[in-house]
């Protein structure tokens, strides 16, 4: 049997097509992007005037200037990450705990809370956009609250924040479900033992349940962080044309409206670096023993 399982031809047939395909579509392009980011502009655009320029674009990206929105964009993506990690995730955790500890209607709640996740993010954005333009102003008026100048999505101060809300809303269910699953898999006897010892409610949660689902919390954090840096769909639909206030949007505009392909590539590489850095940080914080379970996900946030 060992011979069969080690037969080189067979292995090639099973593995090689995928590896080649993957390398060609995923790996080569990312290195090409890296290469382009180090040129002053790509050859396809300016022919022989294209030359190596090192980290010039990376410096330009962060040079302060009134017209440079990239530093602000990075700050915005960090804000999203912060809101997600410190508000969205705890909220999801709270709901997960409530459900896992037993309430009436547990499975119904669980099913319904997940529904936003299965709706297309474009639909979510458009729905919330409509809400911002019609229902929300009415609600604010009846409560006598001040509506931001130029509308929720027009006001400079509030528009980024309001563009975050739909996708934060959408993925609460996703994180909640993952945490719920982890909570449910804590062996019952541990819970019982703790309850017998007098632990209940908050103490049970903080002393026993949360520590025991650390691996899953790490997975959720990972999805959340990577998703924050990549965030594109909702803001693109909701904000004004050619908005550059988030890294992924900025990259898109530089690439397709301004046709600065090398500069856009540098921004893309920066996004990847952000994800890498935070993944490493996450691993350090969680001090994971098993090297493979780094919990990287495609990013839902």
């Amino acid at each position, binding site marked *: 049997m060992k011979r069969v399982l080690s037969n080189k031809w067979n292995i090639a047939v099973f593995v090689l097509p995928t590896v080649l395909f993957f390398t060609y579509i995923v790996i080569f392009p990312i290195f090409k992007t890296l290469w382009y980011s180090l040129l002053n502009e790509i050859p396809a655009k300016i022919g022989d005037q294209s030359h190596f320029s090192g980290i010039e674009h990376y410096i330009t990206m962060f040079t302060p200037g009134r*017209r440079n929105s990239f530093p602000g964009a990075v700050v915005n993506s960090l804000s999203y990450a912060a809101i997600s990690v410190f508000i969205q995730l705890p909220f999801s955790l709270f709901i997960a705990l409530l459900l896992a500890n037993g309430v009436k209607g547990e499975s119904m709640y669980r099913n319904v809370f997940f529904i936003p996740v299965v709706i297309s993010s474009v639909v979510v954005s458009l729905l919330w956009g409509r809400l911002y333009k019609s229902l929300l102003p009415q609600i604010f008026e009846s409560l006598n609250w001040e509506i931001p100048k*130029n*509308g929720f999505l*027009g006001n400079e101060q509030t*528009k980024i924040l309001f563009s975050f809300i739909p996708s934060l809303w959408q993925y609460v269910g996703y994180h909640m479900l993952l945490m719920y699953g982890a909570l449910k898999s804590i062996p019952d006897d541990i819970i019982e033992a703790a309850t017998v010892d007098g632990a209940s409610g908050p103490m049970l949660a903080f002393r026993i349940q949360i520590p025991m689902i650390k691996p899953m919390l790490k997975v959720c954090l990972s999805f959340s962080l990577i998703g924050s840096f990549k965030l594109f769909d909702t803001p693109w639909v909701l904000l004004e044309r050619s908005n550059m206030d988030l890294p992924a949007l900025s990259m898109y505009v530089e690439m397709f*409206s301004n046709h600065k392909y090398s500069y856009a590539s540098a921004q893309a590489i920066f996004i990847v670096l952000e994800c890498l850095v935070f993944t490493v940080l996450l691993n350090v914080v969680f001090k994971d023993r098993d090297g493979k379970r780094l919990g990287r996900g495609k990013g839902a946030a």
Partner: protein
Amino acid sequence: MKKLLAVALAVAMLLGMVSIASADEPVVLKVASIWSAESEANRAPMLKTLEQFAEAHPEIKLEVEWYEANAWKDQGETLALSDSLPDVFYWNAGGVLWNLVSSGDILPLNDYLTDEITDQLIGGALANMTFDGKVYQLPYTNACSCLYCNTELFEKYGVKIPETWDELLEAVKAFKAAGVTPMALGGGDKWPTNMYTDLIALRFVGDEACRACYYKTEGATFKTQDWVDAMTAFKTLIDLGAFPEDAISLTRDESEVPYFAGEIPMYVHGQWFSGSLSPEMQQKVKAVKFPAVGKGYDNQWMGGPAEGFSISAHTEHPAEAFVACQFLAQHQSDNGFECGAGLPAWKTEVQCGNPVMNQIATQVAEGDSLLLWGNTALSGDDATLIGDTVYDLLAGKITPEQWTEDMETIFGK
């Protein structure tokens, strides 16, 4: 041996059949057009044009892909980079065209343009699509922008249709006092704001100085008092509350809804807007020249042939592509004008059934000059910049002085 012969014979016959078949087959050309949405004024005329082409030229088959205008802007240049532009495609003129011309992606048309053909064009039709004596596009429409006034609302509130800048301000104040939003604006898309600022700039700065800036000629500058005055005038409109509260987040389509519903009396926009008006609205709306400011630039217009059809430099069938390009341009000019989607760029006997379009056609024919809009004359990030800066002005983020400073940076390259 016999088998071999039989096979050889079969193959030869097959090849023979194939070559006969392909001799009869029509040449297939790939075409890209915008106006993918049913609501686009130019879509119906274009469909008619395509039908007419199919009848007139059965030897050429057109495979048309429809795009939304903004999306095509993004995709087109990227297709150019990999030499995969369609054979014939819609494109803007001016700096936007120059972008592709300079990288060798557009076929010059001079070899195919006979005097007979060029005689059929209106005067100055090729101005924005000719570089270094070579023609790179054929226009299907002559563009311009003007002020659209809903006469019903003006009568209802006893306001005079403005002919001067001061009258415009009076009209704005009067409507505002009556609780009516005076002017429509889709600030979220940015370029509708340029419609306003370009015309205002034209009145305060004049065709010559604006042209120098938009075409980045030697010695041009934004840092003059005229430019500051122009943007200050625009700011005055904003401060008077001429535009909807949330104008800055509205798309162009959204912003036009209240105008169509007869709730907003004024709108500065391109001539194609007349084609979007319903027949009843066409009776109520009057298109007028943008109000006068009194500096001598008052009979100048923004516009000029600014869009058309171009041919990819990498096409395999240049002769057929030219036939298609010229036919599409000329017939779309007729069909579009007939239903009021645009002004003709080719000489025509066709009459337009849209009274508003006729008003525009008569007035612009008497104009002194036509200047291409800034965001079309400029290209790349310069074009993006002029959209961003007026957006910031609308948002109150920058002052008129800062606007001129920001725009001045386009010369620093």
